[in-house]
């Protein structure tokens, strides 16, 4: 029996900060940054939001589409690089909040920006083998960018959740494959507030090598060609990288641009490629083929080939679309941003 997505949901915080506002504080040229990164604003989590609240919101939205008893979810995996606790799972809080507990398993995942898709693969295994009826995989982050670091222009917040099951599929997952190496392009040590990165090393030997190799592998294994896909959904750390990767692989701007949210909400890390998938599911028609390739620093990529069903269009109105959440926004200045993100602290 096929395994696929029976429900999906997204969540993007309400607050935004513009590239100009960050550039103003650091005396940088906003036009050259916008041109270089192709990001004009990013989402900012409110002071009462974290990866768990984002994951919970996205999971509730996924349940609204799935129309299942949450107690039938036998596994919950939350992937993030901003879990609120170092020791104590995010996934148990989410599972409790959606009333999936207690006869179930749960764990937190971390693989930089691809922990969400890693959760999807684990759920596919559990559901496919019959160990769980449904599995919930979430990618959610309130990512960190050090003040003045180029990352600060893109490090954003958001997430998406996917309920994996066998019946009433919104999209069938035809296949998945991964490409993994030990490549230290981006990391954060215990106790450190902000990640470090290898500058230009994060490009060619890291993002591009893994995204391109993983995508080429799944195309080869599946026998599909680039033109068979309506949508290509790559990880999106900025607006430039996914376009270059898509071009290298032979995808057109029409195939890749519907999934690129980064220009308007920034890089939501574990949320980025899965929010891109949610945005594409929001507009896909029955029978559309989608190729998703995530990327996580460190480094690895997961590729998925999906095909949508007729049920998708019938249920997706049950929760807010990605687009409606991008448009529902409120701009804040750098001082407010610094307060919300804990960059300045009250004594």
């Amino acid at each position, binding site marked *: 029996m096929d395994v696929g997505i029976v429900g999906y949901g997204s969540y993007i915080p309400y607050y935004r900060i513009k590239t100009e506002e960050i550039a103003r504080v650091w005396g940088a040229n906003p036009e*050259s940054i916008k041109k270089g990164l192709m990001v004009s604003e990013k989402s900012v989590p409110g002071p009462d939001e974290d990866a768990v609240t984002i994951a919970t919101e996205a999971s509730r939205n996924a349940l609204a589409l799935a129309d299942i008893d949450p107690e039938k979810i036998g596994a919950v995996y939350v992937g993030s690089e901003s879990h609120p606790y170092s020791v104590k799972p995010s996934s148990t809080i989410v599972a409790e909040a959606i009333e999936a507990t207690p006869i179930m398993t749960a764990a937190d995942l971390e693989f930089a920006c691809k922990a969400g898709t890693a959760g999807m693969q684990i759920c596919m295994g559990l559901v496919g083998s019959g160990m769980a009826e449904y599995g919930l995989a979430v990618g959610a982050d309130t990512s960190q960018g050090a003040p003045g670091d180029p990352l600060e222009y893109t490090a954003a917040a958001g997430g998406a959740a996917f309920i994996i099951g066998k019946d009433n599929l919104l999209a069938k997952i035809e296949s998945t494959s991964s490409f993994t190496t030990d490549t230290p392009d981006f990391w954060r040590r215990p106790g450190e507030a902000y990640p470090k990165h290898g*500058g*230009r*090393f994060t490009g*060619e030997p890291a993002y591009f090598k893994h995204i391109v190799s993983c995508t080429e592998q799944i195309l080869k294994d599946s026998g599909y060609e680039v033109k068979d896909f309506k949508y290509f959904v790559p990880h999106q750390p900025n607006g430039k990288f996914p376009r270059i990767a898509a071009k290298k692989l032979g995808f057109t701007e029409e195939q890749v641009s519907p999934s690129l949210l980064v220009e308007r909400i920034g890089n939501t890390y574990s949320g980025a490629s899965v929010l891109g998938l949610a945005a594409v599911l929001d507009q896909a028609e029955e029978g559309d083929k989608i190729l998703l390739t995530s990327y996580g620093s460190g480094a690895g990529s997961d590729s998925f080939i999906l095909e949508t069903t007729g049920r998708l269009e019938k249920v997706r109105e049950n929760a807010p679309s990605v687009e409606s959440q991008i448009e529902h926004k409120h701009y804040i200045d750098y001082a407010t941003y610094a307060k919300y993100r804990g960059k300045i602290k009250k004594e």
Partner: protein
Amino acid sequence: MNQEVAIIGIGMTKFGELWNRSFRQLFVEAGSEALEDAGIKSEEIGALFGGNMSAGQFIGQEHLASLIMDHSNMTPQPATRVEAACASGGLALRTAYMSIKSGMHDVVIAAGAEKMTDVLPSKTTGALATAADQEWEAGFGATFPGLYAMIARRHMHEFGTTEEQLASVSVKNHYNGSKNSKAQFQNEITIDDVLSSPMVADPLKLFDCSPVSDGAAALVLASAEKAKELCENPVWIAGSGQASDTLALHSRKSLTTLNATVEAGRQAYKQAGITSKDIGAAEVHDCFTIAELCAIEDLGFCEKGDGGKFTEQGETGLKGSMPVNTSGGLKTKGHPVGATGIAQAIEASLQLRGEAGDRQIDDVEYVLTHNVGGSGGTAAVHIFSR
């Protein structure tokens, strides 16, 4: 004993962000290529002189001379590391040259290598800044882009040099680099691309600056007797000059003249018995666009202060009256600091052998190379002939 010295073999890696290659892989590749080009075996090499600025900071490795001989299977021959910041390669060449000139050796290798991309960019800038005066420059926050920006500002103030003229150096070097398969950048750019690139240190923008690079280059040098025996197309070292100046930029009487360049050039011209008018092509140290303008003035290719106009009018282009940086220069070919002085001699050799391909200058008799350490604390100038 005072004998002539020739280059009988050349080898270099591609320059660039060679993340998958280690320091030792780079110098083995360049050295092997040079030996193969010379048609000799490593046991025939009497000694090796290797230029490297800062492997201790970039890859945590000192005692490079032994490392190189070990991994090149060249023990027990002697090896010496030479360091003078970005002029390390030029000085390694001169030291190797002197070892033959003195009669101590018949055949030696002069090499240069640097692996700069194994550390974070902030560390790279800091490591390079150790070539400035730590107490009076770097200690107060000055880095090389900042120091060369001051030279550029002063040049603009004294001579009316424009940002467009600075940009024309970069445009010309990118055009030349587009014809060099070993160059880090092989794309052409426009004046507008330079002017609209991000500001680094006013008035120098990103495209006024040479990149951070990995790479290695090697030359086999031989005495006249050996060269004639081993090689059909030797390239002769007609002149070699080296000079020093104050380490700190602010200690100089003029910010726009590099005295070390003037003096090293004077020595090399004198030894070769020629003047700047006899030079058919030159590789100069364009770590920043302003550095190329100062160099062509200080070496006598144009009057002091006229470098901007001279470049803007195309005189330093491949078809100009005085082609400069036919390889693409440091800006485009790349600047693995310790390797740069050797790579310049390789371009000179290619031009004199007539093997420079699409960037070949016709009927070139003499080629000059100019390698600078820091903001001009050291300069090495060499003149090569057929």
